[in-house]
């Protein structure tokens, strides 16, 4: 366990910045975003950055390959490999979310090269939480303000600086570059404070009595979905959504194949060639989002696809979010 004084943190980031692109939490127009760090003040008083760690490892739009040529002679080039990057300031829930996604992209027979290369080029230094927002519910999802999952280095904020704990081999290496800036820790009071931090939304959220098999046609979904506006705020902020779409962009005889996020709440998410839409009704789309995270994903990976970060709770204009649904599913009578 190491310790770094708060004043030395910028020096650490600056040193790491020599070999990697460094990201840090920066306040932009009153809200904190994980932004490319060029010496700005490192924000502290935030609960969670607007953009999660996912956005920097599985970006909203990334180039897959580039192609050029006429009808016969087409040349194809892979997208250039990602530069190494160090992300400081993400929260433990985001890191867990990213690890959850990493299992989807990298476990199993097919490894997604794009994701793997960018993940392996990334070192994640998360900061444990000393304060929780009314919308946080990480404990309900089996995490805590000091979870280590998915993180390479964990910082525990204290009054004068941070306790620093390397969790992975990559974490060890990154801390070697910080030699001279770190001192030995004198007690782990800051870590215990984070571990015991109470999280407002109670742990009883997760006693889901309405299982998907019984609940698929339950009128609850109709009632819930009616207020949804079918926008993409929840999915585009969610650290554990990973639906994707491929599209080509051509300019004359040159072009690029891009991969980007897709959103299951959009009306035309499952609009297929020929005009058939597998989920034309709002109820179907809203139900699918929650059943995917609470039933279908667990069936494949044995864990619920939600880390309780609270972004959907804060940003859904009509309060149609995971915390609320989990609460409802706990109370709703089976048909």
């Amino acid at each position, binding site marked *: 366990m190491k310790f770094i004084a708060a004043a030395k943190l910028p020096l650490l980031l600056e040193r790491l910045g020599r070999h990697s692109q460094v990201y840090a939490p920066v306040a932009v127009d*009153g809200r904190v975003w994980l932004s490319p760090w060029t010496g700005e003040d490192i924000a502290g008083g935030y609960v969670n950055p607007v953009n999660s760690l996912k956005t920097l490892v599985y970006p909203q739009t990334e180039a897959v390959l580039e192609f050029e040529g006429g009808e016969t002679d087409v040349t194809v080039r892979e997208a250039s490999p990602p530069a190494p990057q160090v992300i400081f300031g993400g929260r433990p829930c985001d890191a867990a979310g990213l690890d959850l996604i990493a299992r989807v992209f990298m476990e199993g027979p097919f490894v997604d090269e794009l994701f793997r290369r960018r993940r392996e080029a990334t070192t994640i230094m998360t900061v444990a939480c000393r304060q929780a927002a009314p919308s946080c519910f990480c404990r309900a999802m089996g995490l805590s303000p000091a979870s280590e999952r998915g993180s390479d280095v964990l910082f525990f904020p204290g009054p004068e600086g941070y306790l620093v704990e390397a969790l992975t081999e990559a974490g060890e290496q990154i801390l070697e570059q910080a030699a001279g800036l770190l001192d030995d820790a004198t007690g782990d009071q800051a870590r215990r404070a984070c571990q015991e931090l109470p999280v407002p939304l109670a742990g009883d959220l997760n006693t889901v009595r309405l299982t998907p098999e019984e609940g698929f046609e339950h009128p609850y979904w109709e009632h819930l979905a009616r207020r949804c*506006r079918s926008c993409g705020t929840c999915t*585009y902020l969610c650290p554990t959504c990973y639906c994707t779409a491929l*599209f080509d962009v051509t300019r004359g005889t040159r072009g690029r194949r891009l991969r980007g996020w897709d959103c299951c709440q959009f009306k*035309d998410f499952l609009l297929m060639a020929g005009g058939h839409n597998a989920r034309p009704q709002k109820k179907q789309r809203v139900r699918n989002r929650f059943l995917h995270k609470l039933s279908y994903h667990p069936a494949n990976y044995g864990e619920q696809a939600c880390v309780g970060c609270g972004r959907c709770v804060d940003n859904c*204009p009509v*309060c149609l979010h995971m915390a609320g649904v989990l609460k409802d599913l706990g109370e709703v009578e089976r048909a």
Partner: protein
Amino acid sequence: MSERESRLRSLAEELLASGQVRTFIGFGPGYEPSRPLPWFAQDPAGAAQLLLNPFCGATLARYLLDDGSPGPVGVLARGCDGLGIERLLADRRVSRDRVHVVGVTCRGAVDPDKAYREAGDTPLSAELEGERVLLTTASGTREFPRASCLYDRCLSCADPSPRWADDWLDEPLPPGKREFPDVAGLEQQDADRRYAFWTRQFSRCLRCHACRQACPACHCVSCSLDHPEWLDGGISLDNNFMYHFTRAYHVAGRCIACGECQQACPAQIPLMLLNDKFMRDIRDLFGVCHPHRPQEKEPLGQFCPDDPEGWREGGAQP
């Protein structure tokens, strides 16, 4: 429970019981008192839970489009909802006989996030008294200025009551005049600083379409911005410029200034600054004194023989 709220509930119950409406849209209990939910009562029991308090925030007009709610539909209408309903009727997306408007006067809605920051704790109830807001939290009641608690859009609202309604819960207030101060502020800056401002805003855009889905004027059956020939290539600054330019132009002359787009935006982009610019120019160039109130003919759907050539006099400055 306020006197208006009880009148709302009994009226809704009576409308539903009599079959005059088969759904009543208003606000109902949510997960916390400061965030009531859009509520779709279909029977007297549902109507009995209707709420009417300063926390009722989102505009409801767009829900009339939802074919899931069997019609005819009763809807609680404050000033912004009323204009939203007029917008949908003017665009013929909703037929008049499907709507039963219950008008109510609104003096502004409390933004739960602002209230939480001001009071330092989750607000449990709120009262509006003139220029003051009484916020009650677990630790008691305190007074705060309107500006620090109300939604931004409510602070510049000029339409407390709908212009017409089938039933009224209280006496309507006359509509006021809407000003666009921030537009002039941005116009004074030089081109590069204006471009830097908008680049900073649009680079945060997630293209989550919350603004489009919230807007009572943006309800095409299939939006052109979803078609690849208009916007392809995913998220990029130039595509975000194209998205917001096109959307602002499409609602130009039709926006009802409800501010729901800016309110719903997770990246908090000041979208009303775009719509205000069009409204201010429509007012100055074509003499439409209240551009945000639907008229018989839309400003861009008509012309006058002596229309000015707005591109000549000094461009951005009025």
